[in-house]
């Protein structure tokens, strides 16, 4: 799951996957603006066949948070 997450983030932000770490966040990834955030959410939903709620979307501000939210949803069988 982590590999896929890194792959998606790299594709959305236009960087190589090794640039994505647990600490990648909206604060240190320059291109991660509000528009890229929507693209990221759409790409993650497509990748993992999930649908995020608005409160989750606004909480997904760094790799660790995204990873936690996806894991929770996958475990809940969503």
């Amino acid at each position, binding site marked *: 799951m982590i590999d896929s997450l890194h792959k998606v983030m790299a594709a959305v932000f236009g960087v190589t996957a090794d640039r994505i770490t647990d600490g990648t966040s909206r604060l240190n990834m320059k291109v991660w603006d509000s*528009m890229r955030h*929507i693209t990221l959410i*759409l790409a993650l939903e497509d990748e993992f066949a999930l649908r995020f709620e608005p409160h989750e*979307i606004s909480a997904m501000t760094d790799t660790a948070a995204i990873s936690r939210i996806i894991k929770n949803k996958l475990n809940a069988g969503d």
Partner: protein
Amino acid sequence: MKYSDILAANALLQPPPNVTPYDLAVIANVVVTPFKEILEYTLRVAGIPAIVRCGNYDTVAQDCMAMRDAAAVIIIWELANITEGLPYQAALMSQRQQAAVIAKGRREIACALAALRRTPTVIIGRFSTLAYTGNNLTPGAYDHIKDSLNGVLDRCRRPNMTLFNTDQVLSFAGVANCIDWRFFYEAKTPYSQAYYRALAGHLRPLLLSASGRQKKALIVDCDGTLWKGIVGEDGMTGIGLSPQTAEGTIFREAQAIIRALGQAGVIIGLVSKNNSADVDEVFRTHDGMILRERDITIRRIGWQAKADSVREIAAELNIGLDSMVFIDDSSFEIAAMNKINPAVLALQVPERLADYPAMMREVATLFPAGARTAEDKAKTALYRTEKRRQESRASRVDLTDYLTSLKLKIAVARQATGAEERLAQLTQKTNQFNLTTRRYTTGQMRVMLRQRSTRVYAFSARDRFGDYGITGLCIVRVVRGTVAVVDTFLMSCRVIGRQLEYAFMDWIINDLQKHRVRTVRAAYFRTEKNIQVSAFYDGLGFTPTARTAATAEYVIDLRHYVPHCPAYIRCAHD
């Protein structure tokens, strides 16, 4: 394909610096930024080096002004955002208030279209209410506003403008899949990536035509592509083409799509590793066949490598490899084609055979969209006579003898009103014998035909084998009484190699001299495909005035022009 894979692949397909990109602007009254990459990817895999710019949120008229220099502009007007909360406010509005909303929309449309009147291609989505009222039995105020604004679009229609049917795109992808309410309320981004994918696919044929990158030839294998099985092994009765079986129906459907493309002017070719007689027998006598021999323009049946056959066909028909689509059921042949002729779009018959007709419907969208000209309809016949000419050439050693035997004639027309569509099409499709590669729409051509300062010359050519139709175009702008500038000089690839360009140029120069023009300026702009004409003006005795790797500019004093028309071409005024 996953959305993230599209993003990653699109980044790799970035047009290289030596290629002029196709500059596209997407302008909307909502946020559509995710469309950028999906549209770029859809066009780039089809051979258009697209760079897409998106406008700002809800500044359509201003964006149209700012981006009017783009090669094409796509406008998406979301009715729900014409005024704040329109879908639910509409029912509460008085008729006067509704009229005010319509007036606001009308003003915005008028401003946008005025800004884009010189943009070569403008594509606009019709207003839709499907996401809100698709389930209503009777139309309400919201539908009334939609109908009124669509009426405005219809009445404002200009020659450079195409309307697409938003409802059709929404229905194709499914309304529920297309609208994402979360992002509409959060960020005025109402559409899902499913909608963007459907829309990009819907617009691709239009943009292929507008950018001059549409495919011209569909080359298909036989065994496993036109019928189930291998005719050389299974025999005539063993191959699957029966309408009584699912597999037979699938292959017949694929054949019907191919046949329809052929009838619409696409060149259909057969490339198969087979005994020619076996394939002939299937075509002539199998009652399950929908494709007929007369649908096939060119064929290579034998045992040579398919990549070589495809190259031969490209050379014989004078078309680029990148205008060819190749279909085969063998992954080996597809991989070989990708390796040896990467410019050819090679597609494999899907393993799940039920997906094959859908793939062919998709393939059909790669070929020219829109109205067919008389030349298109007659194209298969034209290419067939071209083959006869080439066979005749093979039997004659001396080229001049051969060309003399053709009894070539051209008829030149000045300001050929009525042929706008064909002339515009020539500018859009001609890549090889094209000195400046300027693309014009039918509307722009109509305007030029009316301008006194612009001379539009066109020729039709014929020889003893048949008529080529209108195949040459030259646009000359008279700038200052005695000085003329050649804006466009092109010839269809159907008539290259006969030196008709010299007859044409002689006629034009003679006509310009009659109208007191003394000096002609001309230019060559290099593209990936027009290297063969890089020395055209040098050969005619024009003097170079500036030259870079990509361009050359010329001038000639017409007193020094020497006619070049070979004796074997007869030239007349149409």
